[in-house]
């Protein structure tokens, strides 16, 4: 069994090497397909980062009239926390709001002085409400409007980022679908090229195959090397795709971080490089094996 397997691999390697130019061209086409596939995986990661980054920016801030007692606000907080859409609520007292303002404007004496001249604390206490997902803010806003708390509320800021996020998600989904379609098209092209390569390999090995049949070689030994060819094309293209994309990711990562704060594409790529390589190998070898199998069924009769 092990002897047969090692000979299948040996004959496969030899066939791949013997059809060197054709094998190289096939690997290059497969490489294009795997670039698109890898691009799609990376793009999905960028998309998720972008969405998380933007979602972090959304919340509803409810400001309370200055005459509302702290106990009242905390009781409203407690009541809101029972809503299923609410993930967390942060309470900012009047005093904390003033303190934050002073910290933020430390060194700007004229601004601090202006606040001091008012005499009493002009800041309103507030509740910063965060939902589990962006589409739940509308429901929370609705609950606030229709509640008895309305009388204590001075104003609400429902961050308009939601509209931008919806638009971005729509664009990303559109690009994603385009990427998926392109991946499928490239995979089909690569599959056809592998099919043709293996057809030619079968043709150029016809003498060897007829001798193998005559001396009683098993079907596995006759057909196996061509499947090995298909796997080799996929695996080599997968390794090359990971290597070639490395410098591109390193170059793009800092630029991307400017647009999507908190994103680190380089770190994602390098920490997941083996998972990505495995995915690429499975995808590439899968195309290779399927096409090889189809070519064998069609052109390598018993």
């Amino acid at each position: 069994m092990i002897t047969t397997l090692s000979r299948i691999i040996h004959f496969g390697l030899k066939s791949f090497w013997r059809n060197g130019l054709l094998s190289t061209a096939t690997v290059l086409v497969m490489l294009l397909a795997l670039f698109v596939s890898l691009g799609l995986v990376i793009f999905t990661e960028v998309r998720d980062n972008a969405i998380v980054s933007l979602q972090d920016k959304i919340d509803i801030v409810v400001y309370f009239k200055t005459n509302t007692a702290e106990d009242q606000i905390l009781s409203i907080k407690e009541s809101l926390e029972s809503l299923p859409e609410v993930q967390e609520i942060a309470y900012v007292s009047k005093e904390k709001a003033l303190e934050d303002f002073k910290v933020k404007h430390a060194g700007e004496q004229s601004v601090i002085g202006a606040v001091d001249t008012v005499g009493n604390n002009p800041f309103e206490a507030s509740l910063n409400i965060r939902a589990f997902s962006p589409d739940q803010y509308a429901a929370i806003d609705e609950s606030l409007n229709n509640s008895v708390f309305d009388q204590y509320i001075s104003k609400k800021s429902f961050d308009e980022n939601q509209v931008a996020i919806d638009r971005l998600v729509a664009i990303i989904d559109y690009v994603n679908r385009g990427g998926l379609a392109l991946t499928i098209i490239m995979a089909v092209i690569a599959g056809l090229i592998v099919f043709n390569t293996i057809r030619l390999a079968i043709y150029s090995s016809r003498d060897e195959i007829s001798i193998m049949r005559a001396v009683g070689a098993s079907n596995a030994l006759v057909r196996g090397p061509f499947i090995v060819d298909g796997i080799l094309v996929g695996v080599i293209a997968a390794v090359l795709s990971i290597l070639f994309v490395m410098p591109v990711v390193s170059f793009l990562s800092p630029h991307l971080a400017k647009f999507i704060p908190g994103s680190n594409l380089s770190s994602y790529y390098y920490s997941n490089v083996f998972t990505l390589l495995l995915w690429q190998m499975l995808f590439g070898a899968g195309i290779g094996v399927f096409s090889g199998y189809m070519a064998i069924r069609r052109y390598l009769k018993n």
Partner: protein
Amino acid sequence: MIAFQNVSKIYGDHSAALEDIGFQVGPGEFVSLVGRSGAGKSTIIRLLIGEEKPSKGRVFFGQYEVNKLRDKELPAFRRHIGVVFQDFRLLPTKNAYENVAFALEVAGRSQREIGELVPQVLDMVGLSDKMNNFPSELSGGEKQRVAIARAMVHRPEVIIADEPTGNLDPLHTTEIINLLIKINELGTTLILATHNKDIVNALGKRVITLDKGRLIRDEERGKYILV
């Protein structure tokens, strides 16, 4: 050991390559299959090694009913038979040793066995000094001897030689026939398909004569007679 029972082979448009053929070959026999081109010699060989199936009748080889063998059973079956072709069918990129070893490699034999058997069999066919030569560096007779070594290296019960001297001059023809006789004397059944009258007549062994797909003569010590 080998039996053809009422075997016919008809191709597509009712052209019969074989019609109602019946004969038996016992262990250790040397049988010449003779006839003009198109008489059906090669069809009998193809049916015997399971490359084709008969349209009618049954083909037996030992315990195998060849016409009923499934594709996956053929490789193991074919290891009981060694085949020698007119055009040698050697791999040009392999030397004599590697060509012979190839038959054992594809049969799944270990490197140790290959290392022992190949030099022995090349020695037997008189090529121990040329085992590193490539086919392009060998004469026609030497190429055919490599092909015979390859056919017999896994010790088959039967060797089928399909016009093995068709591409050889008289000197090399004699060499090859003598080698086949030697192999037969060591106990291997031999089936020789040929239309070389001189060889058949000189052998003085069993001759099965075919004409237009029919078996017209089967003689123990036969001659090549075609009207």
